[in-house]
């Protein structure tokens, strides 16, 4: 599985990929059905609005508070983990992180890695990196396993294979594994499990992500539903956890509301089937567990977001995926259209810090700013507000110093002048009224084509008289004021 993932090689821009996705009826149906179900599950998991809002407020305070003393907490985390026997590694870039992981595997002369679900490892493109060095890295989360088998990338951060239905998975298993076709989901799971069980036992190294890293106790918390996380972190002799630096929280007490917010927002579950608390390698008197535990803490642009008081809020994210489940754009175009590791609303606000805004210049515009994402975010990230901020960064003069990496990518002198003209029109009453007069008077001459607008709409025709006109006349007659 060393081929490059095809997704990034498709149509180069967001709009082109969106067009392809929108034309794919099966894909649209898969997403619509899945997102509807997830929205219903979340709604049912929060029957009490006051409780929900109180919990979101608390979640926001815990994350914002943790971020306000991020350097101290990271230091404390490193110290506690070290005391617990966990080796802590720091990586500024994905290259460094991959190097570190590779180094750990090499030191054990490992050739087989089994991986629980980890979005940070997707960020690193760890599978490819290791494959190029002769190390097989097998995904053990069912969804991740499916997308890996099909040489794809995850289309959702919680449900990587959500873009496929049972029939498509059945065909994939038939084509790649030679299994008989079946649309029975339990049967399909059984097929996956059969392959994976063996791999857990054979693997030299297990890799996992981290949901919350607890500074006070040096504990790595990992939630999951399939048991593959527990297998990946306990069966192989070495466990490497990879995570972003923003995952640290002060103490175990903070984790309780955060886990509740995470599992209820993501899947409508009161709690996941497995909650793993990893606090070190196997001790001499213990029967199982890995001999070595490593934690790789990755920056990859996070400190850039951290340095900006407004953009720092992106680091509140606990990766529940509720924003994408509720996003009318994501629901229609699916995760692959975004062309990046993190799709949907949260992807649009974190990817610029990782890849640079110039790599994803269309992302901030791919939103009607409807606000559904911000409304459901369990840690109250004001996603629409941050998208608006990125739109500003996008159109800044590229010659000027940029506040967000890759800013100014959408700068256009022409567009700037159009908005200057718009400003003039709307700040000079006489000019505005002349415009109204001309637009209503010559309405018959309104253009039949108005750029992209008339792709989806009839040409807009101004009314016979403007409200300015109607109101003046009406108020003159009826004693109101049209000052």
């Amino acid at each position, binding site marked *: 599985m060393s081929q490059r993932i095809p997704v990034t090689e498709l149509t180069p821009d967001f709009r082109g990929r969106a067009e392809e996705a929108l034309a794919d009826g099966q894909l649209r149906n898969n997403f619509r059905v899945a997102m509807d179900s997830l929205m219903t599950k979340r709604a049912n998991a929060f029957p009490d609005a006051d409780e929900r809002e109180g919990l979101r407020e608390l979640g926001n305070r815990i994350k914002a508070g943790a971020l306000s003393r991020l350097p101290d907490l990271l230091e404390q985390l490193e110290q506690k983990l070290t005391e617990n026997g966990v080796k802590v590694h720091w990586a500024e870039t994905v290259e460094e992180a991959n190097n570190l992981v590779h180094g750990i595997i090499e030191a054990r002369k490992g050739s087989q890695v089994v991986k629980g679900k980890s979005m940070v490892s997707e960020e690193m493109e760890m599978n490819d990196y290791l494959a190029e060095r002769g190390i097989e890295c097998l995904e053990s989360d069912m969804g991740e396993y499916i997308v890996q088998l099909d040489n794809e990338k995850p289309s959702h951060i919680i449900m990587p294979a959500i873009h496929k239905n049972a029939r498509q998975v059945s065909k994939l298993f038939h084509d790649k594994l030679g299994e008989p076709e079946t649309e029975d989901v339990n049967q399909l799971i059984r097929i996956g499990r059969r392959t994976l069980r063996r791999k857990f036992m054979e693997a030299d190294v297990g890799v996992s992500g981290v949901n919350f890293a607890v500074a006070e106790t040096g504990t790595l918390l990992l939630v999951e539903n399939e048991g593959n996380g527990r297998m990946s972190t306990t069966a192989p002799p070495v466990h490497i956890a990879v995570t972003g630096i923003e995952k640290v929280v002060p103490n175990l007490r903070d984790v309780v509301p955060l886990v509740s917010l995470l599992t209820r927002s993501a899947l409508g579950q009161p709690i996941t089937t497995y909650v793993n608390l990893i606090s070190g390698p196997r001790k001499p008197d213990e029967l199982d567990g890995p001999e070595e535990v490593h934690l790789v803490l990755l920056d990859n642009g996070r400190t850039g977001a951290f340095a900006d008081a407004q953009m720092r809020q992106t680091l509140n994210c606990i990766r529940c995926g509720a924003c994408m489940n509720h996003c009318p754009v994501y629901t229609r175009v699916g995760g692959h259209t975004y062309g990046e590791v993190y799709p949907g609303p949260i992807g649009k606000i974190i990817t610029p810090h990782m890849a640079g805004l110039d790599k994803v210049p269309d992302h901030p515009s*791919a939103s009607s700013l409807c*606000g559904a994402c911000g409304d459901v975010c369990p840690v109250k990230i004001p996603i629409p507000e941050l998208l608006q901020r990125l739109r500003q960064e996008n159109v800044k003069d590229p010659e000027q110093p940029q506040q967000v990496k890759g800013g100014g990518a959408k700068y256009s002198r022409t567009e700037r002048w159009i908005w200057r003209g718009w400003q003039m029109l*709307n700040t000079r009453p006489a000019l505005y009224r002349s415009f109204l007069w001309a637009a209503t008077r010559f309405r018959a001459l309104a253009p039949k084509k108005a750029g992209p*607008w008339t792709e989806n709409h009839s040409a807009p025709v101004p009314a016979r008289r403007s409200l300015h006109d109607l109101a003046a006349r009406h108020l003159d007659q009826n004693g109101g004021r049209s000052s």
Partner: protein
Amino acid sequence: MSQLFYDAAPNATRVSPEREPDRQYPEKPEAVTLFGTCVVDLFFPEAGLDAIRLLEREGVRVNFPQEQSCCGQPAWTSGYRDEAKAVARAQLDILDRSGLPVVVPSGSCAGMFRHHYRVLFADEPGTLRRVEALAERTFELTEFLLKVCKVQLADRGAPSKIALHTSCSARREMNTHLHARELLQQLEGVERVDHDHESECCGFGGTFSVRMPEVSGAMVKDKTRSLMDSGAVEMVTADGGCLMNINGSLEKQKESFRGRHLASFLWERINGASAGEVV
């Protein structure tokens, strides 16, 4: 029901349970300023006029400053902060002249006054005080009629079934998603029917509709389809932007179904005739 909506839970996108509006409302004032909004001004002026008549019917004198233009939102959502700020400042000056409460027949422009002006002028403490005062006295038309005027509507129209589209700004910024429903409930002959994915965005989003016409077009097609499938004979909404988007799409699709501004709908129901085409 279209293919895409087959398996959808009814109203799945509604962020439930719905929140209660939490705003404190003042006594009914003697006079207000109507901020018409640029979309209503040019494309739905009859809705603006009907809003004036509804307010006058409640004994509220209406002031319509002729210097007003646009709230500044198009530039603001497009990332052109300076241009948005200049236009916002002009409106602020005009609205401050009388200092009257401001009634807006569009949720998104009201939301601009109440929320986004604060962000625009965050770096100007002097102006910010005026912005806060404007936010305090800005009302979306439906909430002003219902909560401030405590309007009582006597229906004189024939029985009708309608669908209500609530704009995202009304729902999430102004928290007025229940007000239009309550107004419609006062009309005896009007039955409001739910439509599928009622709380989902119609796809307008200002310049989003021209920057991402593919996605925006897919959204408005789904919206118009669910409105037509609802069994309603027409749609009403209290937002000019959504109305332009939905009606423009329906016309392009050569459908006869149409939406109307809530102000015009209400005025017609209580009078048995529209004041719209008097000109």
